[in-house]
């Protein structure tokens, strides 16, 4: 791997690159904190993730889908955690997990794709912005290149934009020869689109080391930890999770989805070792699901949901919620959990506090369309 990386510096970037700051300059990042954004694509059901068991309307609205609070981990007198989230429950106990409920992006319609675009671009309307808030956050970092990585074969919208980012996912394909890789580097030199992508890919491959080709949640957590634990590794990362759109048969599917999330984060924690204390993971989804169960053992597209901040750097052990209540009169449009907290405010506060950048400045850079007042006191300073 080292050979490949060295080769890249000579041939693809060219000899001149040796005079520029070498890649190891990443170690000079102004912060040692790590920020990981885990997106839950498909509108994860916040009401069955962080369960408002003390709300009398909960059991009634959810019927057979309601989670029995005696099986769930109690978080406080109002909320309990889905029984699949065993490790996250332990993190809560250790003061390393914080849950924000009744939270939503500015989006108020019901299209996944528009909602994900709003969540990822940080705009107020779909497709108004062309780059993502995580990329703009990357641009605020002081270090040079490869500051951010997506653990996916392609770069998700939140990470797209002017700041250089990379992507990596383990592959089961036989590796190409070093000779071919080097020649491809030469072949792309004149191509404005492919050349930077290729350079980034070669650099990332060098960093991946001995990680195996597995793609299960445990391996993904370990893989991410491997990158983030490195002193010269990326400080900002993103993981995509899918499969949260549960219109039918929700009980089993949500339990499996949450289990996978739990396993991934536990492996991330274990893999990071002491670096976990410098880590903040934001878990968020594009919108919530209907307060009531539908006719097919599932829920439909809703509005308010729950988000999580997890990591050793989080001031956790609590649920932050201005609970709107689930009584019919309190629901948005008579069907959804009414949002009382802004996801943008959570993101601005969490990102700013993680990296020690003035949160109002982060809020202005990430959410220029409608600047939220950042939430405070989320992360240890």
């Amino acid at each position, binding site marked *: 791997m080292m050979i490949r990386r060295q080769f890249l510096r000579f041939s693809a970037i060219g000899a001149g690159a040796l005079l520029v700051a070498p890649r190891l300059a990443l170690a000079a990042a102004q912060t040692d904190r790590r920020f990981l954004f885990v997106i839950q694509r498909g509108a994860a059901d916040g009401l069955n993730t962080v369960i408002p068991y003390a709300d009398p309307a909960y059991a009634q609205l959810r019927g057979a889908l309601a989670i029995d609070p005696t099986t769930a981990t109690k978080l406080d007198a109002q909320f309990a955690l889905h029984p699949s989230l065993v490790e996250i429950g332990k993190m809560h106990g250790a003061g390393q997990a914080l849950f924000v409920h009744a939270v939503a992006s500015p989006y108020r319609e019901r*299209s996944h794709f*528009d909602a994900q675009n709003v969540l990822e671009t940080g705009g107020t309307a779909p497709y108004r912005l062309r780059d993502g808030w995580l990329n703009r956050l990357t641009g605020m970092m002081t270090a040079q290149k490869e500051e951010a990585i997506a653990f996916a074969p*392609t770069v998700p919208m939140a990470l797209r934009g002017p700041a250089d980012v990379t992507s990596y996912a383990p*592959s089961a*394909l036989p590796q190409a020869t070093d000779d071919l890789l080097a020649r491809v580097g030469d072949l792309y030199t004149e191509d404005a689109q492919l050349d930077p992508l290729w350079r980034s890919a070669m650099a990332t491959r060098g960093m991946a080391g001995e990680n195996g080709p597995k793609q299960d949640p445990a391996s993904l957590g370990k893989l991410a930890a491997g990158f983030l634990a490195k002193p010269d590794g990326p400080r900002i990362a993103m993981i995509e999770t899918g499969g949260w759109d549960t219109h039918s048969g929700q009980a089993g599917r949500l339990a499996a989805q949450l289990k996978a999330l739990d396993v991934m984060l536990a492996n991330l924690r274990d893999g990071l070792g002491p670096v976990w204390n410098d880590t903040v993971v934001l878990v968020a989804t594009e919108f919530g699901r209907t307060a009531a169960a539908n*006719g097919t053992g599932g829920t439909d597209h809703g509005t308010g949901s729950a988000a999580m901040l997890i990591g050793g750097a989080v001031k956790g052990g609590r649920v932050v919620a201005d609970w709107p209540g689930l009584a019919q009169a309190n629901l948005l449009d008579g069907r959804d959990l009414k949002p009382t907290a802004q996801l943008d405010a959570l993101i601005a506060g969490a990102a700013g506090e993680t990296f020690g950048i003035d949160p109002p400045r982060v809020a202005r850079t990430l959410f220029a369309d409608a600047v939220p007042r950042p939430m405070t006191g989320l992360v240890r300073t």
Partner: protein
Amino acid sequence: MSESAIALNRFGIGARPDDPAPTNPKRWLIDQFDRYEPRPAVWAALPPIAQLADDYAQVRMEVRQAPKDDPAKKDARKEMRRDARQNYQDAVNARAASALTAAAPFVERLVWFWANHFAVSADKATVVPFAGNFEAEAIRPHVLGRFEDLLLAAERHAAMMLYLDQAQSIGPDSIMARRAAMNNPGRQRGLNENLAREIMELHTLGVRTGYSQADVTEFARALTGWSVGGLGRGGGRPGGPNQGDPGEYLFRPGLHEPGARTIMGRSYTQVGEAQAEAILHDLAVAPATARHIATKLARHFVADDPPPALVDRLSAAFLQSGGDLPKVYRVLIDAPEAWAAGASKFKTPWEWSISAMRGIGMREIGQMQVAPMLNQLGQPVWRPGSPAGFDDVAASWAAPDALVRRVEVAQRFAQRVGDRLDARKLGATLMPGTIAPATEQAIGRAESPVTGLALLLVSPEFQRR
């Protein structure tokens, strides 16, 4: 890019080493309408829907009937998954095989376009065995017909109804719901609005085109009763004595929500299955639908940011012809925007792998397994992450890791035939008048014919169309 290279690659699916360059590119494209085979031999060899559904229902039954904790239950479940996966992989192989020798490559590309427009996803277990049949039965026969017929075929196919939960949707005031409520008041049964929403948002009008949540719910009510025959519960619920033909569309009157519906100010007084048909008819010819389809076609064939004037012309052709698709395609073929020399579209992993396989002269896929390869390339066949299908813009596919995977696959392809094909000449055959001198030079200097061929397959020119 020369006009013949555009015809072969932007409209087509990549040339083969023995393909002569089309001398009249537009004529070459239009003539394909007469040559297209909706049901070529490799597709016809796959099991029909009745057999797929029957087999599926049978193993499901075994799974359900085996006593809990019995090892037989586990085995039956394993067998069910294995069979489903086998059906899926066979169909993926058929899709690739038919593309290798397609008589009408432009129409083959249209099949891919429409299958992605009406996306079903094998991410959902119940869809896995039926995904290939969806393309074979709902898409392939209708790509040269009217949009309305394509729409109806897609929405009524088992894969779509299972994927978007339609098969389980029950009118809250239907006969079945009332009867069930009397027998077992505790259990919830009712409406599922998933299919209705995605038809409006993705398949016809497009998102943010003026319909409301109430319109979606009303449409969902109209759709109740649309179901799949022979799959029993979970597929379609038992709707009385008539279980229908396995896997075929079946209207179950007992599940249909009675009454007239109002959608976007229009009233639908039809009774039974005709109600949703009437709504689909109006959606199929709506101006918003014309614009939505025109935009997607222009994006697919011309540029990630489709030229507005072309969208206007395609949209007008759609509306004037009532959605006669070949009339719309002809506007595309006549569009100067589509013949601009610069290659503006970055190939998706599927497009790239098929064009590479054609480019190295493969006629059949042999022992190759296409599905796992496309997983590795980042575009698992018939398994987009959402009902919106796969993205059709470069930003979704041109990424660092994705490029490395293509290089790895290219090396494997090149190893198969690298000693038999001369990469230095092949470029001009596959992409006449397109290869840049720098690429030619890099290929010429490669240490071996295999490396030269691999370089051609991942060259900037070959990555684009």
